């Protein structure tokens, strides 16, 4: 009897889980909620889908950026209207909100919050991310009508994504004081290591998909600096990466010290538990030291 009860309970819980999961999927697929017409623009071509294999056919030059995070597919719809430019809607289904956030940080110039969790609007374009979706709506050249239409579409897509997604854990470890918020870049591929200043052409920090990296700019009244933080799976990995950095960096490095570089700026690198924190291009020794010390305190909390 007990066994049967246990069996029935398990089946019911499993069914509830499946139903909940399916309904969640239906609710959160923003491409299903797109209108057929918007402000006089209509869909006249079939929607297209691209995956890991076919992404190169669709976006020339940007595919690697999506693949360097985690990507499953992109939905593409084109709206047309007489005497107006086409509106191109792309919804990228990233593997996680971390990936959507990461792609967003590398593909924008400024930070706004009008749509999704973060957005940017430029001439003829709205880009935002929410949950695991990275959304782009383009219409070039921009007209007053198209500006209104893409804004409306962005709102529709934003509302159709019910849930938000968490930011990568590493974000919690970066100091907030003097941080230039829109300069934050998240990455898990070494290709992005030079996002704010040139550090190296090579993978001198052993960055891979199991490491989480952040680069950000810090500014105060008379100074600025670039902060690098990398979170490794364990302390052995961070120690090994630090050794590689010592061996490979173009300047001679003294561990745990803020040093003057060849270009008269200041840099320093420090391992704290499973993290490596670094400062590059700092305008002063004190500014570099303050940021590194803050990061160390946060990590040690």
């Amino acid at each position, binding site marked *: 009897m007990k066994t049967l009860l246990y069996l029935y309970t398990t089946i019911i819980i499993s069914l509830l889980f499946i139903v909940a999961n399916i309904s969640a999927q239906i609710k959160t697929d923003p491409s299903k909620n797109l209108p057929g017409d918007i402000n006089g623009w209509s869909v006249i071509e079939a929607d297209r889908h691209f995956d890991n294999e076919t992404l190169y056919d669709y976006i020339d030059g*940007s595919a690697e950026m999506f693949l360097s995070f985690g990507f499953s597919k992109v939905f593409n719809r084109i709206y047309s209207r007489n005497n107006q430019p086409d509106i*191109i809607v792309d919804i990228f289904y990233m593997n996680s909100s971390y990936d959507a956030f990461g792609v967003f940080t590398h593909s924008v110039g400024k930070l706004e919050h009008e749509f999704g969790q973060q957005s940017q609007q430029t001439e003829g374009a709205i880009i935002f991310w929410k949950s695991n979706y990275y959304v782009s709506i383009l219409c070039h050249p921009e007209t007053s009508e198209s500006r209104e239409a893409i804004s409306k579409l962005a709102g529709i897509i934003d509302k159709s994504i019910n849930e938000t997604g968490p930011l990568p854990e590493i974000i919690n470890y970066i100091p907030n004081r003097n941080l230039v918020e829109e300069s934050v870049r998240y990455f898990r591929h070494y290709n992005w290591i*030079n996002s704010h200043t040139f550090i190296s052409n090579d993978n001198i920090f052993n960055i891979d998909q199991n490491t989480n990296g952040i680069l950000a700019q810090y500014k105060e009244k008379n100074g600025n600096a670039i902060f690098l933080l990398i979170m490794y799976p364990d302390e052995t990995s961070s120690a090994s990466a630090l050794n590689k950095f010592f061996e490979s960096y173009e300047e001679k490095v003294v561990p745990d010290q803020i040093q003057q570089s060849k270009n008269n700026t200041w840099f320093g690198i420090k391992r704290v538990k499973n993290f490596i924190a670094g400062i590059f291009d700092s305008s002063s020794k004190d500014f570099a030291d303050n940021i590194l010390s803050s990061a160390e305190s946060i990590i040690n909390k």
Partner: protein
Amino acid sequence: MSTKNLTRREFIKTGSLAAAAGTFILNNPRALFAAPEEKSRVVLIRNKSVINEDGKLNPEVIQEMLDESARVLFNTKETSQAWKKIIKPEDIVGIKTNVWNYLRTPIELENAIKKRVMECGVAEEKIGIKDRGVLRDPVFQKATALINSRPMRTHYWSGVGSLIKNYIMFVDKPADWHGDSCADLAALWRLPIVADKTRLNILVMLTPQFHNIGPHGFSPEYVWKYYGLIVGVDPVACDAVGLKIIEAKRKEYFGEDKPLNPPAKHIELADTRHNLGNADLKKINLIKIGYKEGIFI
């Protein structure tokens, strides 16, 4: 130096020397150069009239710019003399362009190149103009001469889309060349389908792009009217000059040094690792013609 051992790098660098000597550099170019010239010769030509008020290109001005740059590059009095130094009547000519829909090689420029190639005596059916599909194109398959032309733009993975990178369509799987942020693109130039065939490189800097945004990497905010063409025999030198201009524009626009990410290291490595040409500006003889305002170099 033994002419037998002359490398492609030396060939590229000495192109202008041969031109100045009035020599036909085609059938056996390596035999022509007894002494290497240190510097690569590159022409940067700018003309504000090339873009009309409505934003469209003026085909006559494009033709003039191409012609003048060829005359200066090859040190000739007449345009036809310059072209005849690089194209002969029996050549089969592939004009490798770039059709990225936001910033393509202008059709006006393609036509201007084709016109001069035909004036060298090449039959129209022996001229191909293509970007994607060059591997399956009969003209490109049999090509004896290539002319390489594309706009420069920033690129999410290789730093910039460059003349060097423009040959990536000569492989079946371009993605195979994307490793280490496209570091070794210069090796493409050793493939039999292109090796030693490139007679001229034209980097289009009419409205170059200096920053990426969004999944397609394009916004009108990040292109500007530069009104220029960069023309040379050495693709690395042309790219190095273009890159310098893009970097300077970024500094002006963003108000601070904003390095390309990733850096366009394939250009420097084309020089230091692959020996394809000169990336060091000190080894480039840059000749500037025309409009000077906002030249950035």
